Structures are given as C-alpha cells and as structure tokens.
C-alpha cells in the first residue's frame, strides 16, 4: 500500500512482517546514504527495490543481514532485533545465527572458485552442522536440479557461464533453507541472453512463496515478479506500492521522472 504522507515510506499495511525496518540511517563517513527508512516485509512477499545508482537500495539490502552496520534505527528479522548492541563475540554469534536464515545472492556471484558447484552448495550446511554430508549432498542435488544444473554438480565456477554461476549461487543460498532471500542486482553483470535463465529461477521461487527482496534495474522484471515495489532516491523511499500502481500511476514527480527516463531509453 502506498503511503501518501511525506516522508514516503515502504511500509505495507499487513500484519506480522518478517522484516521490520524503522528509522534506518546509514552514513559512510560524512556521506549519508540512507536517511531514515521505514519498511515492513511480509512473509511470502516479493519486494523490488528500484531507483537510480547511488539511491541507497543496495546499501539498504546489505544492512538487513548486516554486511553493512547501521548508523541509526532498527532492523527486525523474524521478531529479533538484527542490529542489537552486543559485545564483539556475542554479536558475531548473533549475526551468524541470523544469517543462516537469510540467503543472499550477489551481482558478481561470489562463488568459491576452488570448489565445485556441489561443494559450493554443501559447504555451509555441512560446516554449520545443519546436515550430515550425505544429506547435504542429496539436498544440494535437489537444489541444483531445481535451478537446472543437476548435470553441472562437479563443474568448477570457471567452467560455467555467467547465468549458470548465478544459478549455482542461488542454489547455494537456498541450501541453508532461509526464510528470506536477498538479491542484489543479480542479473546486472550478465550478458542479456543469460538474464532470462536467472529470472526464471527467481520466478519459480516467487511461485513457491519464498520471501524475497530484489534490488534491480530491470523494471519489467520487477513489475512482473514483485508484490510491492519501493522506489528510492537520495537515501529515501520516495514511493512504494503494488507494481501496477507504481509503474502505471506513480504519484510523486521523482518517481514519474525516473520511470520516464528509464522507459524512454
């Protein structure tokens, strides 16, 4: 639902959100990249974060699993305060547990080049004692099958195309059976002909009601797959709402101008 009253937020009018963000601010030195974000994300929803480069959408995504710490504000995940103040060791433990439930897929894949696709997928579940090795391999095989790469299990990342790498990366993130998946411009580094295969996997996850936050420049994909779209500019949420509303009937001049620029290209 769109919040018309300024400052606009990405808050959706639902109950029991899996992610709650309140008054989130993030500074890099003197530069403030997030200037007070409020947002709720419901289980099973797909939220697309859109906006120009530098608008803060990737930083916002990275604060959710604390790859970036926050300057001010609160992030709640599954009823737990993500950015609670703790001594170093306790904080590490807290974040490790939290991150096991949040999958993340990166623009540049970040697959482990010295491990096969299978080893990439099984590494965390085995090391963290989630499953024994046999079970982890069986689960990984199912995941690789799901992303259409069951015949590439023993390949190293260098032997895979960009689209295949990204699909392995998605399988790897799913291996811990996360409750939330974060996608950070996952098709931006791909050749155009490889984008479709990654988008198809994400659509499949959407159908299975995986909660997803997707940072993307691909507005058509955002419109197609998401339940809610959040448009960000200059560290604020400018406008948020269902895709048909935000794309077809934007209310704010900044949103109109951004969409106009992108769709006219």
């Amino acid at each position, binding site marked *: 639902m769109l919040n018309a009253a300024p400052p606009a937020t990405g808050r959706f009018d639902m109950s029991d959100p899996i992610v709650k963000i309140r008054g989130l601010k993030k500074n890099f030195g003197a530069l403030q990249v997030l200037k007070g974000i409020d947002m709720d994300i419901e289980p099973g929803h797909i939220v697309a974060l859109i906006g120009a480069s530098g608008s803060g959408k990737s930083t916002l995504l990275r604060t959710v699993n604390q790859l970036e710490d926050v300057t001010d504000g609160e992030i709640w995940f599954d009823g737990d305060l993500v950015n609670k103040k703790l001594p170093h060791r306790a904080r590490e433990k807290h974040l490790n547990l939290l*991150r096991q439930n949040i999958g993340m897929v990166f623009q540049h894949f970040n697959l482990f080049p010295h491990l096969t696709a299978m080893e990439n997928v099984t590494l965390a579940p085995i090391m963290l004692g989630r499953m024994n090795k046999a079970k982890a391999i069986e689960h990984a095989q199912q995941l690789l099958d799901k992303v259409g790469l069951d015949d590439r299990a023993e390949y190293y990342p260098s032997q895979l195309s960009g689209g295949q790498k990204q699909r392995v990366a998605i399988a790897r993130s799913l291996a811990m059976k996360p409750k939330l998946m974060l996608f950070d411009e996952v098709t931006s580094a791909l050749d155009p002909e490889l984008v479709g295969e990654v988008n198809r996997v994400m659509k499949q996850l959407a159908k299975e009601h995986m909660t997803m936050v997707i940072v993307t420049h691909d507005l058509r994909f955002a419109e197609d797959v998401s339940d809610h779209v959040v448009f960000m500019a200059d560290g604020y949420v400018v406008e948020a709402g269902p895709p048909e509303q935000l794309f077809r009937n934007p209310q704010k001049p900044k949103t109109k101008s951004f969409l106009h620029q992108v769709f006219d290209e």
Partner: protein
Amino acid sequence: MDIELIGRVWIYFAEAALVTVQISVLAILLGLCLGFVAALGSLSVNAALRWPSRAYVSVFRGTPALIQLFLLYFGGPQVGIHLDPMEAGIIGLGINIGAYMCESIRGAIISVDKGQTEAGRCMGLGHFQVMNKIILPQAARMMVRPLGVNSIALIKGSAIVSTISVLELSYTAHRYISSTYKPFEMFFLASIFYIVIVTIFSYGVGKIDRRVSLEN
C-alpha cells in the same frame, strides 16, 4: 684458476653446503610459522593482536639482519639468552624472514576478493571458518611465489651467520682462503654451491606453484 685445489677441497664445501641447507630450511620453517601467525594477527579486528604483529614487522624489516643476529648472539647472554652459533643463526634468520613472510602472506590474503568473505559470512559461517575454507585455500596459490622469493633471499642471506662462526658455506670459504690464499677459487666454489642450492629450491617452488595453480 687452481682446478687441482678445487678438486681437493670441494668435498668440505659440500659438507658446509649441507649446513647452509639445514640452517636455511629450519629458518624458513620458523619464518613461515611466525609469518603466518603475524599475518593473521595483523588482519585481526582485535587491536591487541594487530599491533604486536605490526610492530614485529616494522622492527624486523626496519633493522639490518646482521644487527639482529649480533643482538641475539652477542647481546643475548646479557639478558639470559645463551645460544650456540647454529641455534642463534636459525632463530635470528627465522625471526627476520618471518617479518617479510608475514607481508607476503598478508598480501595474498587481502588480495582475495572481498566478495568471497561476504559470501561466506552471509551464509552464517564464522570468521575462522571463512578464513580456513574459503580465503586461505585461494590465498595459498598467491603466496607460493612471494614466499619462494623470500626463502631464496634467506638462503643467500644465510651467509651472514658466518659472522658468528657457523661452519656454513661462506665461513668455510673464508677459512680455506686463510690457509690457501686463493680467494677467487674459494669464493667461486662457494658460489657454485649457492647456485645449486637455489636452483634446486627454485625448481621445488615452481613445482608447488604449478600444483597449487592446477588445484585452483
């Protein structure tokens, strides 16, 4: 050149070369251990580990190896450290090369893309798990060559332990010069042995490098 003299003394140089190899190998192993610990320390978020590591590197790279060796061997007894020449040579060279090796290891670790750490951490792996399973296996490939260069520098630099009377190649050359008055032949012979040692060592480093590269 007095070939006949070389023919008579080369066997003693060969024995001395084994001492050079022994000192070098033990010093390299000590240096690797110290370098590895110091590299991890220097990358720690904990200042109590970071600063001693950085101080170690600054001090031992910032002062001549010869002075460090003299400090240990001649100065040691004043503070209760009594070492024979061989022990002082190994420890002195090892501590010195460890500071250089620390920088080679640290450089290899930080050259692994930051995204690798992020990918590991965001799956819930801890710092040491990420280091052990993700970063170090990739960094290993990049540290073989610089560590090889450090080690070769140490083999040649081991000549300084002749100043504390360790019976290695350089000391042996000096000893035979004083009895034969043939410095050219003696230093020439010592050089041949150094070249043989360094060549064999370089071959080994190359083999390890190729093997690690293939594995990656």
